């Protein structure tokens, strides 16, 4: 598009450059004199001006040029559109390809709803949005360069995709070649920006007009929020952002009404069939995956489990079920006659064994007993991609209901209630008693296991969890990290019953998720005054440590306690396995998997980013007082980090 003068460009500064040239005359750089050369000997030599620079600054001033300003760049309209979608925050590392949008958000949009949160890396922006969503259940707007920014962001997008978390990403891109200024803007431009992540996003578009932007922005939101929820990408063309809104469009541009569809519930006849199987089962088990899309799912899942007298095997992807409930983590898929899988992405793993890594070959067989009936309810059946294999192995089942599990729970509960006879009710009550006893034994076993190595150094992960619980138990707390790498100790010792007590894990185990997801979740908790607790793996923090600065700068209260086991432990164990398998020595398996020599001092790292910190702590008896001191800081609205040297798992 040719750049022409238009009447609607206000603030047209004629002769401005002439004034600038006059001022520049005072900045003329003369060729260095002898005395200056002598001075230069005592100082580092400054580069001499090039002949071109000298000519520019000493030659005849150029002819006056037009300098444009506008009161309505296209980015203002884009901000209007995005504000209509009710985003609370923007998480972004700045980038020239969306400078127009950034300026409009800050000035025209007054930096409120959404408010700009400064990130130090695009992987951080997306993972923060991932964590934020899992607490607030509202998506975040993120921005990145269409090229280098997206390349940084891509792993975190894949995590969100695999975790069925909506993230709204806008990519800056200069599509019009005539608008690219120099090699930076050429290397930062791309023909099809979203193509790099199209395999693990749900929808994308590259609008060519403001009207197109408005429609696609609203559509992207709608698509993203329809289960299964996934990230979406929208490209914001630089020219559209920075050029004025065309006069002829100012009266016609509209923001389409956005309506999020109701989630798809299961077909009534299929739900009745599932209810029949469940009510008549002698030993039903529920496997819970990403069931709790909203807090409303938790009491419904409790109601269903209690109604059926069914054990609930929680796959720990979401806060699905209260950890102290007598049916939590009870029941056995191997002895069940009906297994109900709710939003379970790895249902094969829940119902099959696999040859451990320490054996040659691979054999997998069902652990369910012959004749056991399998039922699934998942929105995963409504959407899949082919390239990335997060969908898991195909699992033969007896009844597959393609629907959102949470949306289906009310009708399933009602159908079960209708079918429940006094006999079936008695049977369910009997099962519940037995399962409650199993739950009690599990609890006793966990407490006793926690005593082993209680005074050991490095500190056991059980002791860490117990010390933390001792001080947050009576607070309104939220665990904003996964528990997989600490042997699930918090889930084994703490009492989880609120929707925000747990956020699950990475989605695709892309490391580098933990720290930013915790900060994002803590930001969501901030307005409720909750104490956010992050058990922070050391390897993970080293991917995007700059997120500590974001937490400090934006005053995000978060207690991080380092799980500093000084290595990439999973890989350490794998290497040992491989060395044993190969019949070779196992003395060298620490090569490439440890973070030692030197030890990383995370307390110093946090201080460098402006955060309160303490440690490294090696004596378990020092941990309690350190948590207490750090909590005081967090309660004042600041982040704090304790560097704790821990056992491997």
């Amino acid at each position, binding site marked *: 598009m040719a750049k022409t003068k238009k009447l609607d460009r206000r603030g047209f500064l004629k002769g401005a450059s002439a004034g600038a040239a006059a001022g520049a005359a005072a900045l003329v750089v003369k060729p260095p004199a002898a005395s200056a050369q002598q001075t230069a000997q005592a100082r580092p030599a400054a580069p001499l001006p090039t002949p071109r620079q000298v000519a520019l600054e000493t030659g005849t001033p150029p002819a006056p040029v037009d300098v444009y300003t506008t009161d309505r760049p296209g980015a203002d309209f884009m901000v209007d559109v995005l504000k209509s979608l009710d985003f609370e925050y923007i998480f972004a590392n700045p980038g020239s390809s969306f400078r127009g949008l950034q300026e409009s958000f800050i000035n025209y949009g007054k930096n409120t709803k959404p408010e700009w949160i400064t990130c130090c890396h695009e992987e951080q922006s997306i993972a923060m949005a991932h964590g934020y969503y899992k607490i607030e259940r509202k998506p975040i707007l993120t921005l990145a360069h269409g090229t280098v920014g997206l390349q940084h962001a891509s792993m975190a997008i894949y995590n969100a995709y695999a975790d069925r978390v909506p993230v709204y990403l806008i990519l800056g891109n200069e599509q019009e070649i005539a608008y690219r200024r120099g090699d930076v803007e050429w290397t930062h431009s791309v023909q099809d920006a979203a193509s790099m992540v199209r395999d693990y996003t749900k929808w994308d578009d590259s609008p060519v007009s403001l009207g197109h932007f408005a429609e696609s922005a609203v559509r992207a939101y709608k698509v993203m929020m329809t289960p299964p929820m996934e990230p979406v990408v929208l490209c914001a063309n630089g020219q559209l952002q920075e050029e004025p809104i065309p006069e002829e469009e100012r009266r016609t541009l509209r923001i389409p009404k956005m309506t999020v569809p109701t989630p798809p519930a299961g077909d009534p006849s299929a739900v009745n069939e599932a209810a029949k199987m469940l009510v008549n089962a002698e030993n039903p088990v529920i496997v819970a995956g990403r069931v709790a899309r909203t807090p409303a799912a938790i009491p419904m899942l409790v109601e269903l489990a209690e109604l059926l007298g069914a054990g609930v095997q929680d796959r720990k992807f979401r806060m699905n079920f209260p950890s102290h409930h007598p049916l939590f983590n009870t029941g056995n898929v191997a002895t069940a006659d009906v297994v109900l899988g709710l939003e379970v992405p790895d249902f094969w793993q829940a119902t099959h064994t696999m040859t451990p890594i320490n054996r040659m070959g691979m054999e997998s067989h069902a652990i369910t007993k012959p004749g056991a009936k399998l039922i699934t309810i998942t929105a995963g059946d409504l959407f899949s991609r082919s390239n990335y294999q997060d969908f898991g192995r195909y699992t033969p089942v007896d009844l597959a209901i393609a629907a959102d599990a949470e949306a289906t729970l009310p009708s399933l509960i009602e159908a079960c209630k209708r079918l429940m006879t006094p006999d079936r009710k008695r049977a369910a009550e009997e099962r519940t008693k037995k399962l409650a006893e199993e739950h009690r034994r599990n609890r006793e076993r966990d*407490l*006793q296991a926690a005593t082993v*190595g209680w005074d050991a150094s*490095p500190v056991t992960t059980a002791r860490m969890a*117990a010390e933390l619980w001792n001080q947050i138990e009576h607070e309104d707390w939220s665990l904003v990290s996964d528990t997989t790498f600490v042997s699930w100790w918090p889930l084994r010792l703490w009492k989880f019953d609120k929707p925000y007590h747990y956020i699950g894990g990475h989605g695709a185990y892309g490391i580098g998720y933990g720290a930013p997801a915790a900060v994002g979740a803590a930001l969501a908790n901030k307005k409720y005054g909750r104490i956010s607790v992050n058990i922070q793996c050391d390897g993970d923090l080293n991917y995007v440590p700059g997120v500590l600065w974001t937490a400090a700068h934006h005053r995000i209260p978060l207690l991080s306690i380092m799980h500093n086991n000084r290595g990439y*432990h999973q890989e350490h164990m794998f290497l040992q396995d491989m060395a044993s398998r190969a019949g070779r020595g*196992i003395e060298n398996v620490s090569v490439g998997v440890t973070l030692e020599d030197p030890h990383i001092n995370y307390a110093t790292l946090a201080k460098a980013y402006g955060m309160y910190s303490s440690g490294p702590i090696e004596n378990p008896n020092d941990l309690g007082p350190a948590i207490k001191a750090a909590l005081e800081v967090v309660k004042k609205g600041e982040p704090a980090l304790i560097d704790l040297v821990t056992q491997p798992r």
Partner: protein
Amino acid sequence: MKIILLVTAALAASIGFAQSGGNAENGKRLFLRDGCWECHGYAGQGSRDGARIASTALSAQGLIRYVRRPSGAMPAYIDKVISDQELTDIWAYLKTLPGPKPVKDVPLLKSLENE
């Protein structure tokens, strides 16, 4: 022939005795060098990835048998990688590691009993 059998039996018994004794100090060195702690923890407390082995209930021979042909996900360690004697020393070290204690003896955990 009978004498040979008796001598063989006596020899085997004496080897067994030596093996079941083990050198705990060397066992600790091997436990750390060979990375047993990776899955089982420095205190032998166990984890998501390995069983609790502090104060193991296995005999030395039982431990050797298990390590050679584990039934779970643990790697199998052949004698080329770790000898019977070395495993016996590790076993002796594991016997020195304290096992679980009563929950009532750990106030922080005792407070969780009734939750």
